[in-house]
């Protein structure tokens, strides 16, 4: 188990190194630079050049690359060109929106998907199952940003229950902040829940066909206990995989939803930074996200071992 984890960690590290080189050199091709953008139409060339020097943009490609990666090692992400504050501060501010949003929608989607999946599996082939699966088929097909638009129209514009967009900040109090995250979380959660429900159902059906379930049934255990205690526990592997993937997706893939609701999250930060050529922000956030994906995958693998004792002994 330890050897396996070490091997995985080494692979993750390698991925990070390659990713840093790819991101840095790819962004190098982007036309235009931050200095010119900051100073706009009327700026004279020498003012722009002076700003470039101030930002360190006049240095060579390799110098900047090693300066940046060297900083990353000591968790120094550098300073944003446009905001001229440490990138880590910007990221922390934005993660305070993205992280709760991702967690809430993940919790929401799990809370919907697991019962629906189990329910459908227990009533396989019956109308309830067909209905649940038809609904989930629809859920998978709905683009989350369109669903978000409809939610805004109904709950914010029409009923005026929640704000249509923007984020008041956690300093405004937990409730106003949470209120601003409700619609985005629902918009993100529902399509995810549809996928998760389908995975749960089919994983359960796989397990229900296995011998130990038949044994449990033969022992006279009630159906509900068989389902929740024995079957679901063993069906968790694919469900966990999907959950891990979804978390990684939710953290960065929310950029479109953040656009719909004007949430100052990580996705929007990267989006803005690309347009403002604030490349150091783009590079650092992408690296952070890549690292998150690697860590989450690692965690999923570890929980595999926890859920399935067979795997624990195997490696």
């Amino acid at each position, binding site marked *: 188990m330890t050897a396996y984890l070490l091997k995985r960690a080494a692979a993750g590290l390698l991925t990070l190194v390659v990713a840093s080189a790819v991101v840095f050199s790819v962004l190098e091709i*982007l*036309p*235009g*630079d931050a200095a*010119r*953008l*900051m*100073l*706009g*139409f*009327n*700026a*004279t060339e*020498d*003012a*722009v050049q*002076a*700003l470039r*020097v*101030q930002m360190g943009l006049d240095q060579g490609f390799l110098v900047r690359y090693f300066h940046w990666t060297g900083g990353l090692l000591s968790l120094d992400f550098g300073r944003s060109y*446009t*905001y*001229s*504050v440490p990138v880590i501060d*910007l990221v922390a*501010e*934005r993660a305070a*929106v993205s992280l709760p949003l991702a967690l809430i929608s993940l919790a929401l989607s799990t809370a919907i998907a697991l019962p629906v999946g189990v329910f459908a599996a227990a009533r396989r082939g019956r109308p309830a199952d067909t209905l649940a699966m038809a609904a989930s088929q629809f859920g998978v097909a709905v683009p989350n940003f369109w669903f978000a638009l409809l939610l*805004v129209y109904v709950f*914010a*514009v029409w009923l*005026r229950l929640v*704000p*249509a*967009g*923007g*984020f*008041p*900040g956690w*300093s405004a109090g937990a409730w106003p902040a949470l209120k601003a995250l409700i619609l985005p979380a629902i918009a993100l959660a529902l399509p995810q829940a549809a996928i998760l429900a389908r995975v749960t159902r089919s994983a359960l059906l796989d397990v229900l066909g296995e011998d130990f379930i038949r044994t449990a049934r033969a022992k006279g255990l009630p159906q509900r206990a068989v389902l929740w205690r024995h079957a679901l526990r063993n069906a968790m592997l694919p469900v966990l995989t999907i959950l891990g993937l979804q978390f990684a997706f939710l953290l960065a893939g929310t950029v479109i939803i953040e656009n719909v*609701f*004007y949430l*100052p999250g990580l996705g*929007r*930060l990267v989006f803005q930074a690309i*347009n*403002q*050529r604030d490349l150091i922000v783009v590079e650092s956030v992408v690296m952070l996200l890549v690292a998150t994906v690697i860590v989450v995958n690692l965690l999923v693998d570890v929980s595999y071992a926890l859920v399935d004792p067979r795997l624990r002994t195997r490696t």
Partner: protein
Amino acid sequence: MKIRKSVLAAALVVLVSNAAYAARTDLVLGIPLEPPNLDPTAGAAAAIDEVLYANVFEGLTRIGARGEVLPALAESWTVSDDGKVYTFKLRTSVKYHDGTDFNADDVKFSLDRARADNSTNAQKGLFAAIDTVEVVDSATVKVTLKNPQGSFLYNMGWGDAVIVAPESAETNKDNPVGTGPFKFGSWAKGSSITLVKADSYWGDPVALDKVEFRIIPDAAAAVPALLSGDVQALPNFQLGDALPQVQSDPRFKVVIGSTEGETVLATNNKKPPFDNLKVRQAIAHAIDRKAIIDGASGGYGVPIGSHFSPANAAYVDLTGTYPYDPAKAKALLAEAGFPDGFKTTLKLPPVGYARDGGQIIASELRDIGIDAEIIPVEWADWLKQVFTEKDYDLSIVSHTEPNDIDIYARKDYYFNYDNPAFHKVIEELNLTSDEAKRTELYGQAQKILADDAVNGFLFELPKIGIWDAKVEGLWENAPIQATDLTKVKWVD
């Protein structure tokens, strides 16, 4: 416990109803773009000035609601007969928000900093005419120009020319310290900037205690925020097709004013076939300003016939120079040697008026046989390709700097326009400070640009201001990019 609660509630009711008698002193304003930093001397973004100009930072002079030059940190000034020496008498007992005193040394520091070799001031050109800045005494500054400049006092009223203190100049981007009626409170990046009343202010005290600029990037979010009362004013917001929703609501005042934003179909005047006057005239005749204004600015833009703001006293209406006439446009194209039209490109920056207006113009050009391929570009690419490298045929952009007709006289400006007659007018204008004479010269300049059909002159970007009907004192027009809150108050 229960009893105490109800007592508390009653007390609250009293408190609240008492508070209702006094006018409100807080205001939340919605702005579409977040400033990249909070230092007006360190960036061209209009959003910086829209939050800080006149509120936190002040210059020697300031621009008023009608575009006039008013005294600010300079109480008064005298100009030498040859127009080259300006002597400013400064206000005394002015303090920065950090408690330090304002004096002539700060003026010298600010002006020298802005025009230094390593200056990163976005409008360095404003200070180009300055030869020396001398401190006469702590309340007097003498500025000597290399040559007379008619617009010098106006230039000193720009946001980029505000006076900063040497102690705080480097940290203003994050923690702005100025001399204005409001001091910086906090900045929640991505969502809002808060200013609070500065008690140390030298001028008339302001009515508001706390002002929050909330960043709302889009009309779709702004309208619900306004309707629910979260935001009480949208001083300059392109609501587009969502505007009627607010207009019909008596709780709000909708004020359509003017900006200094001349929206033009920028044309590469040196690149064939646009070097041919007939081709440019044909394009001018092909443009239906009404359709563009309806489709790209919600119907509120004011048509323009040259590069000049209709709000300016020196404005001349030249929209009739080349009226909408597709048949005539086709004939002109044929005369120019393009009976079947030609193919060209239209590069559009990422703003609504350009992207929407571009589609309409492309459709109108197609009607006279010109096939313009739309190429959307981000600002960074636009600045590089169009503005710097002049690698473009046509583009649409709004030139929002006030009084900027002189850009047509600049060497190597991206229009690639070069007319000696126009140069002469601008040179003369620079040397003239007599208002009547300046107005006449401005008129001549406008006429030359219109006749030459340098660009497709489309419309003046409207300033659409929406605010609670009980709020008073916000500007109707936007002669400069600013949200001047010094006179804003709640009334009942």
